[in-house]
């Protein structure tokens, strides 16, 4: 397991990548408005966002497949902004793999090596050895002569990965790497990519719209919305300390309430809430709560009154939907053993939450 991977652990080519104030406008597609981002050498970073947020555009700008309208891209100390894609030495894995259908697996992987100018092209013997090393790495030994048309989606994905790694890229870029795969394969491949990253230490950036995927796989997550960077941080950062309402809402179910700050104390309907508001806020504010930030209380107690309008089982817990008199729906997570019925009057107590303007 370790010997074939040996020549691939070289980290010399790994660089950090700095994106400085990059902007790109299209006619009507996903645009970017002044995004700056630093990707550390050797890290696994997720670009997370809904469709149309500009995450794929950013990935393609890093690769050199799109030219930004303004801003710069640095690979280490080198300004790569106007460096042609052929000379950037990036490994790009396309969403639908873009394997060359007329070439077999081995020739696909060798493509980048054979495309090198005669002077720097490895000998055919070395190309073949490298191909077989890479096939070992992606666990597809023996598939050399197969054609992409005869491979499953997960196998295609791994060939595409091997092809991208063959050129010893300075950074590996993956566009929605699991988008086209079914649930089971997706889960396997996730763990496998994590493992591969640990072994090769390759700087890797991947684009995804799936928050679970980003949180499970990445060291750090950059969240994009509408062409702007909302937050960059570790998985814990973005989950526990979301900086914007968008991040809060995008990373899971969230309910929000209108609250009031009086004398640095947060109040809902006159009752104090055990959440410290930021010092610079006063007057009407918004309070965001996740389903586990709330607790059920007997009718007439708690901060908010409501009626139970839905109950469903989620794993070992129960999700309860409570409808307030103002007709907003609030999700609350409670132990499965809680005794509830639809139509029951109930109170809600806020335990935790995040306050914004």
């Amino acid at each position, binding site marked *: 397991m370790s010997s074939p991977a040996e020549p691939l652990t070289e980290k010399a080519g790994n660089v950090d990548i700095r994106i400085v104030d990059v902007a790109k406008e299209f006619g009507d597609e996903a645009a970017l408005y002044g995004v700056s981002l630093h990707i550390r050498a050797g890290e696994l970073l997720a670009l997370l966002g809904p469709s149309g947020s500009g995450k794929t555009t950013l990935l393609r700008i890093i690769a050199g*497949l799109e030219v930004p309208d303004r801003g710069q891209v640095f690979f280490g100390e080198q300004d790569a902004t106007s460096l042609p894609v052929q000379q950037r030495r990036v490994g*790009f894995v*396309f969403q639908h793999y873009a394997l*060359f259908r007329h070439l077999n697996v081995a020739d696909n992987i060798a*493509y*980048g090596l054979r*495309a090198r100018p005669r002077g720097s092209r490895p000998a055919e013997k070395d190309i073949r050895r490298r191909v077989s090393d890479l096939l070992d790495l992606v666990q597809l030994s023996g598939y050399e002569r197969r054609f992409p048309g005869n491979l499953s989606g997960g196998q295609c994905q791994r060939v595409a990965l091997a092809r991208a790694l*063959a050129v010893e890229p300075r950074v590996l870029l993956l566009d929605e790497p699991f988008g086209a795969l079914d649930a089971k394969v997706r889960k396997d491949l996730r763990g496998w990519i994590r493992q591969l990253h640990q072994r090769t230490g390759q700087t890797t950036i991947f684009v995804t719209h799936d928050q679970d995927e980003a949180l499970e796989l990445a060291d750090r997550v950059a969240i994009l919305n509408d062409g702007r960077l909302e937050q960059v941080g570790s998985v814990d950062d973005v989950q526990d300390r979301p900086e914007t309402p968008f991040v809060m809402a995008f990373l899971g179910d969230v309910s929000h309430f209108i609250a009031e700050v009086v004398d640095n104390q947060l109040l809902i309907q006159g009752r104090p809430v055990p959440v410290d508001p930021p010092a610079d806020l006063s007057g009407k504010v918004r309070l965001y709560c996740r389903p586990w930030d709330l607790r059920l209380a007997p009718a007439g107690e708690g901060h908010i009154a409501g009626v139970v309008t839905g109950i469903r089982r989620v794993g070992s817990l129960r999700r309860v939907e409570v409808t307030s008199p103002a007709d907003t729906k609030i999700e609350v997570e409670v132990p499965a053993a809680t005794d509830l019925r639809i139509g029951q009057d109930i109170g809600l107590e806020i335990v935790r939450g995040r306050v914004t303007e």
Partner: protein
Amino acid sequence: MSDVSVSRVGPSLRRSGSGWRSVTTEPRAVRWIAIACAIAFLAVFLVLPLTVVFAEAFRRGVGAYWAAFQEPDAQAAIQLTLTVAAIAVPLNLIFGVAAAWAIAKFEFRGKSLLITLIDLPFSISPVVSGLVYLLLFGAQGLWGTWLMEHGIKIAFALPGIVVATIFVTFPFVARELIPLMQEQGTADEEAALTLGASGFRIFRTVTLPNIKWGLLYGVLLCNARAMGEFGAVSVISGHIRGLTNTIPLHVEILYNEYNFVAAFAVASLLAGLALVTLAAKTLLEWRYGHVLASRTPH
């Protein structure tokens, strides 16, 4: 009417053991009448004309058939047609690939206008196509006097026939490649770019293998039309026997001289070419259906 046929279908299908008719098709009787009508129509309009070519060609036997090709004029016509196609087809092939690359791989303004202009020769009468070149190169044409003074012959000579043929076969390769390459998108080329390949290498090792069957089909169509073009060549060639007569023009002359067997014999050559083209098309579609883009005919 539908009620009648539906009620009649029950028993007839029970006989066939199914007992149930899908709602997405017509009653069996209606289906067979429609099939019979379509086949009868196609037989009268397509199969019989094709058959009659070969029947007339061999009416006086194989000897008479062969004799038609022994004539020096016939051989000159065949040679001229091959020469014209050998020049016109490669030129339109290069144009078709270049146009399809520009149109399918890039977004730019005026693209749909460009596509319309490329299609233009399809909607122009072959006779008019011949005429416009006569207006350029003919004795009364724009450059006629100048050409005459310098002793260059274009109209009523090989170059005129070649340009007229290029004109009428102009869109074939491009028409075939544009939708195909648009369908394939640019991901493969981008993948090759990230792997460090140069533009020409990408075309040769990635794009060309993806489009080769569509390209082959476009070239076949272009060639069939180039060898068979009649109206445009008829106007520009001047009908000089043994010199500027292509195969179709030679067929016309023989026919007008009531030399029917020879006319149909020579025509059978072109009919055979048409059949080969159709067979190749069917084979390509059947074998590589996914690599030929869906398209409207020319």
